[in-house]
């Protein structure tokens, strides 16, 4: 391992930003993918994988990705909820690959909801 200089300390700290935010629980936006057995059967795991790849592609550090159990509207699975900080959470339903990409780029990255894919406004409690 190389001898560190002050710039190296700053560099390591910046590289670990995602870890810091993850452990401190602070984020610009939170994406909750609704799982549960029905969600997984409808393809929620693939949605989760896609969202994670989008995170990687756009190199986002401050977005929280979590999952929750069945939201109750099994006919509209797979679903996800996007909460952009300081704004109301939006529930998206009947998802597919294209919709997820659009929602990620417009709502998660830019804070602008995509009304045509949404069911309504509001988040569920995980517990």
């Amino acid at each position, binding site marked *: *391992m*190389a*001898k*560190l*200089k*002050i710039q190296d*300390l700053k560099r*390591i*700290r910046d590289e*670990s*930003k*995602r*870890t*810091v*935010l*993850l*452990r*401190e*629980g602070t*984020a610009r936006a939170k994406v909750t*993918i*609704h*799982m*549960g*057995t029905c*969600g*997984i059967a409808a393809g929620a795991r693939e949605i*989760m*994988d896609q969202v*994670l*790849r989008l*995170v*990687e592609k756009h190199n986002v550090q401050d977005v*929280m*990705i*979590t*999952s*929750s*159990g*069945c939201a109750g509207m099994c006919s509209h699975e797979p679903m996800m909820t996007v909460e952009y900080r300081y704004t109301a959470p939006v529930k998206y339903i009947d998802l597919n690959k294209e919709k997820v990409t659009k929602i990620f780029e417009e709502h998660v990255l830019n804070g602008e909801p995509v009304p045509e894919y949404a069911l309504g406004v509001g988040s569920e409690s*995980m*517990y």
Partner: protein
Amino acid sequence: MKPERTHILVCTGTGCVSAGAFDIMEALKTEIKKHNLQEEIAVVPTGCNGFCENGPLVLFEPEGIFYRRLSVQDIPFLVEEHCLKGRPVPSLMYTPPKEKSPIPAMKDIEFFKHQRLVVLRNRGRINPERIEDYIAFDGYMGLAKALEMSPEEIIRQVKVSGLRGRGGAGFPTGTKWQVCREQPRTPKYLICNADEGDPGAFMDRSVLEADPHAIVEGMIIGAKAIGAEQGFIYVRTEYPLAVQRIKKAIKQAEENGLLGEGILGSDLKFTLSVVRGAGAFVCGEESALMQSIMGHVGRPKQRPPFPAQKGLWGKPTNINNVETWANIPQIILKGGEWLAGLGTENSKGTKIFSLVGKVNNTGLVEVPMGIKIREIVYGIGGGVLGGRKFKAVQTGGPSGGCLPESMLDMPIDYESLKSVGSMMGSGGLIVMDEKTCMVDVARYFTDFLAHESCGKCFTCRKGLERMLEILTNICEGKGKEGDVELLEELAIMVRETSMCALGQTAANPVLSTIRYFRDEYDAHIREAICPAGFCKALITYSILEDKCVGCGACARACPVGAISGEKKQVHNIDTGKCIECGACAEVCKFDAINIA
């Protein structure tokens, strides 16, 4: 490679490790791999979270969900439910005593809510064996700033912060550093006192296990300020995990150019090594500790001269406690004024307390100075165990004293505790209830001190021995009128004629219990009764006729066959055979066992 979406932070402080935390960690990794989630979910070992009553425990971030009292058998279900299906598991969460619903989020739990983490800021949050984790949370930025400051400026910040020695004596740290800096002789040395001998204290151990780099960084800053080139960390060998982690941290710092020559590219030079103590409480005393480092028998020496003037090998040595050193990086990074904004007029900053004894939430808590004892015991601690009546709280370990209920609203700081016959000490807080015998408490601490006395001072050596004799006699029902007065005289004599703090503070447990609980001493001596029902020689076990239904549970539980009786008839205890073990009282469902 998928980016991580969840970190599972597994507590691996010694408490949780001894309850199986490493096995839990392996089980988590296995189950996560089974569901092919290992790229998105990381399992991270961290240091002690402080909520030791509830170990083994884990924290899921970023949701902040807290799971406790886990066993390896819980893990497959936990991983399948929470990690795969996204459903947190309420049955594994913390439910406060007397309540029905669990509290999922750690930040909502009373125990954690009221704490103010300064020294323990990285607990449960970083992997202590990864220097990158430490740096991610502003680690070594304090050092970077210190390298651009003059030594005088560094010392000034420490003085402004008002930091006082956290080992117990509370001497102003900035002043000590200044004295050491101004000494002309070289080379100068730094010592970190991690001997932590107080029974039941584990603050220093937890800091070393959770955040060892904080000590390393603090000492490098100290080296710049004082002009030292070599430092020692004296850790008691009874802390194997702490020794392992601090040694690893030192090695990582060396590999990264943070110790040795040319630190962070500057011309600062400093090396650190670990020295292990073993089995001697007195070696936590600074002058005895230095004797031990030099390879001599651990016996205190006359002061003055103080270590800052003449310490290791006759050279100026600055010795500070673990908690004191751990405050330094943040004082330099955020400025001395920042720490001075916490605490009271004369006691700035925070203090870590080990809250133990008859309290619901036992563990490690860090709170600002000036908090009331009541807030710690009832707010953070969740009240007395089993809903029993609060009797006293013992602060400061063997050097401290017991404080009764009337003192519950006293704010905790160095001066206030001293004014009532106790002291801050290293931060032990033992909660006692109505079943604790205060005479036995005095006897316990005096026994400890008598054994740990190095023997150099006649009064400490013989005085404590005599005091122990008298206290043991009282507990066994052989106390005489005049014993209490003799105890007081001996205690004061030991205090005034001992050379080191062991003897000088030995009087506190005895004198404080006599001061506030004189009635218990009198009851033992004059009536041969132990009001708390504890001292075996003074209590008799008997069966209450009106409560006993003759189920026979007690007779079966008795290890010496002292209980006899017919089925459905009132049973009887033969006091000649009874060894007062309490097994019968534990199994009786009808409250029929009387202890008096």
